[in-house]
């Protein structure tokens, strides 16, 4: 009886919290439902109605520069701390566009190419997240794998590539294989940096780690709710190198609500996964089945 009461209480508390979260917009695309919620002054893009766990991108509309999600902070730090003045950047997966927008402001010289498969996501990002694309920030609406293969054939090179095409409940499995990561690697210039948003729990963590390691060798791991992998061709940046750039960007990053020093402490090279986990390939890629 007591447990039942507790459950009831929890359920009503849940609906009360739900009620404060207002739905600003929803649209069905070819792939999913794209939803925009606002709660306590934070606006988020979600692909499911359970918005608290599945937030793709969040902003504070009164302070739009501020990064609201940890994983975007980690990806920004990975990009800026591990590379020296990148001029060509590729981002696979747009979401609300906070990363490309910030990179556009922080690195005005850089040409940024974004790949987003879902035109609805791009539309919603423009309308609700103040995403502005233009000649220096181009969006291609195509499958990430198809884009990477084409770019490789055209001999394109990037100084930094950010992979952010996953969702907590669905992983495009062809974007998490050794072959794909190898194709991505051919797009990286010498000393090019890879920054990938991935999962921090479930059995997939081990498989993902060995798969990245099989292509890029040792890498830095930044872990919070998500895990961000930072790898570099040639050699990994030294701690001094990371520190120097963290200091350089400290003031600039403050405007984005990003604490340089705190992020620097997240960079870890510890191998905390089962190194014998099977590498994911085009032949073996049950990523969604492993992510449970």
């Amino acid at each position, binding site marked *: 009886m007591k447990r039942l009461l507790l459950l009831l209480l929890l359920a009503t508390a849940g609906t009360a919290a739900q009620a404060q979260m207002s739905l600003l917009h929803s649209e069905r695309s*070819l*792939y999913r439902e794209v939803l925009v919620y606002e709660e306590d002054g934070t606006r988020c893009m979600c692909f499911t109605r359970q918005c608290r766990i599945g937030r793709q991108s969040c902003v504070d509309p009164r302070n739009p520069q501020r990064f609201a999600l940890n994983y975007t902070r980690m990806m920004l730090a990975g990009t800026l701390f591990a590379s020296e003045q990148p001029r060509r950047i590729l981002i696979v997966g747009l979401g609300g566009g906070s990363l490309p927008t910030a990179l556009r402001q922080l690195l005005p010289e850089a040409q940024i190419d974004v790949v987003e498969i879902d035109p609805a996501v791009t539309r919603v990002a423009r309308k609700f997240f103040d995403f502005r694309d233009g000649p220096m920030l181009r969006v291609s609406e195509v*499958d990430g794998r*198809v884009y990477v*293969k084409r770019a490789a054939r055209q001999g394109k090179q990037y100084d930094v590539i950010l992979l952010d095409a996953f969702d907590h409940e669905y992983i495009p499995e062809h974007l998490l294989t050794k072959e794909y990561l190898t194709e991505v690697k051919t797009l990286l210039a010498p000393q090019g940096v890879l920054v990938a948003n991935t999962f921090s729990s479930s059995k997939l963590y081990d498989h993902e780690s060995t798969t990245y390691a099989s292509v890029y060798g040792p890498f830095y791991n930044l872990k919070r709710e998500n895990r961000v992998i930072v790898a570099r061709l040639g050699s990994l940046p030294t701690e001094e190198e990371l520190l120097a750039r963290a200091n350089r960007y400290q003031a600039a990053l403050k405007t984005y609500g990003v604490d340089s020093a705190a992020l620097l402490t997240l960079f870890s090279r510890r191998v905390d996964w089962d190194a014998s986990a099977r590498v994911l390939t085009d032949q073996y890629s049950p990523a969604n089945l492993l992510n449970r």
Partner: protein
Amino acid sequence: MSRSLLCYGIAFWSGFFVMAIELLGGRLLAPNFGSSIYVWGAIISVFMLALSLGYLAGGRWSLHTPSLTRLSLLLLAAAATALPVLPLTGEPLERLAIAIPDPRFGSLAAATLLFFIPTFFSGMVSPYCVRLIVDGDATSGRRAGQLFFVSTFGSAAGTILTSFYLVLWFDVNDILLSLMGVSALFAALGLFAGRKST
């Protein structure tokens, strides 16, 4: 008795085979064409079209000296023509993707190249089976219903086993080869039983 039982077995397996290959088809096309909704659309369209034409052809072929031996050869033909799927998925698909940049028509061409012929032969199996098991006008509908049941039930089994378990345990190519192996086994059984009965 054993002859019609084998017919049902072959129809079940043919249904299993078609859907397992169809699901793996998504995997095989994804590296070059992505996994967008139209890639699945292309794959499903090709399978449906090949099956529909296969039904026509299978029914027609059953008019001339139908036998368990010939049915087994159909199953064998489906397996044998699925074999080129393995070497074709590498460079040939990449070249096709370059030649047809629109991923909709690229994936349609790729699915046709890889799956049309084996699925056509698989489609021939069901109506041919009906011809072998029907034993009179009055029961023909019931027999056909039973045949559709085992064949579609096989498809359901092939779908769920492949997507829930097989891809978690094995490489795609190993699953494909095993499917062809089981087809060859059923065909061998059919050929053996067919020879004995004549």
